[in-house]
C-alpha cells in the first residue's frame, strides 16, 4: 500500500481546471502538471461541480471566464456560497483584459485573475495560494 509517509510526507496538490476550449485545457493541464500538481481537467462548470461533489479534496480551482451555460464567474459564486467548497481558492482565466470583470471576480472572492495565454510564471505565482 502506498503511503505518503517517508520523504516529507507531502500530499500531492490537486488542481481542478475548467475550460471549454480543448486547446486551453491541454495547455493549462500541462502547465500545472509540469509543476508537479495532480490535475483534473473538465470542460464545463457543471462537470466541475459534479466532481467537487464526489471529491472535495481539491486544493485549487482554475477556471476560464467565458464558458457556455455556466461562466467561470457563476461557478465562482456557487463555490463561494457553498459551506463545503468555499475554502477552495478559485482562480479565473480570461483572454480579455476587462478591469470591471476582474474587479467583479476579485470582489466575489476569486484568488487571482490570469490573462490568457497563461504562462509558467503565472502558475508559479499560484503556488502559495493553494489550500
Amino acid at each position, binding site marked *: 500500500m502506498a503511503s505518503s509517509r517517508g520523504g516529507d510526507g507531502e500530499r500531492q496538490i490537486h488542481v481542478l481546471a475548467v475550460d471549454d476550449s*480543448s486547446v486551453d485545457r*491541454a*495547455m493549462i493541464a*500541462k502547465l500545472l502538471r509540469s509543476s508537479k500538481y495532480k490535475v483534473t481537467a473538465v470542460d464545463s462548470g457543471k462537470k466541475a461541480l459534479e466532481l467537487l461533489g464526489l471529491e472535495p479534496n481539491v486544493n485549487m480551482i482554475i477556471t476560464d471566464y*467565458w464558458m457556455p451555460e455556466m461562466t467561470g464567474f457563476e461557478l465562482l459564486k456557487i463555490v463561494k456560497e457553498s459551506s463545503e467548497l468555499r475554502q477552495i481558492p478559485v482562480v479565473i482565466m480570461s*483572454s480579455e483584459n476587462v478591469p470591471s470583470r476582474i474587479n467583479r471576480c476579485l470582489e466575489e472572492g476569486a484568488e487571482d485573475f490570469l490573462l*490568457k*495565454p497563461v504562462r*509558467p510564471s503565472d502558475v508559479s505565482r499560484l503556488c502559495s495560494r493553494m489550500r
Partner: protein
Amino acid sequence: MEYSSLHRQLATMKKSFFDQGFLDEQFFQIEELQDDVSPNFVEEVVTLFFKDSLRLMGNIDHALEKFPQDFDRLDSLIHQLKGSASSIGAAKMKNECTVFRDFCDKENQEGCIRSFQKVKKEHACLRQKLENYFQLLRQVGPVAKATRSGN
C-alpha cells in the same frame, strides 16, 4: 550528416514562420512545455487546435447564413476561435479574427463575410505550413533520440 541537414531545414522553416508573422512567441511557450513525459506535446496541441477551429469555423459559416444575423452568437464564436488561435501563437489568424470581430461589433454583415474569408485563408495557410513542419520533425525525431542515447 543527414541529421544536421534536416535539423537545419527545420530551424529555417520555423524561423520563417516567425519572420513572416504566422507564429508568435506563444508557440515557443508550447515548445517549452514539451518534455519526456509528453514528447509530442506541440503536435498534440496543434492537432487539437485544428480540430477545434474547423468545428468553430463550420459553426461560423452556418451562423453567417442566418437572416437576420445573430451578431451576439457570431461574436461568441469568433471569441472562441480567436482565443484558440492566440493559445497556439497563430498570430496572423488571431489578427484576422480581431478584424472580423470589429465588423461583428459594428453589425456589418458584408464586412464579416469578407473578413471571415481571410480568417479561413490564414487558417489553411498555417495548417499547410505546420503539417510540413511536423512531417519534417518526425524525420528528425528518431535520429535525435539515437544521438542522445549514444552519450
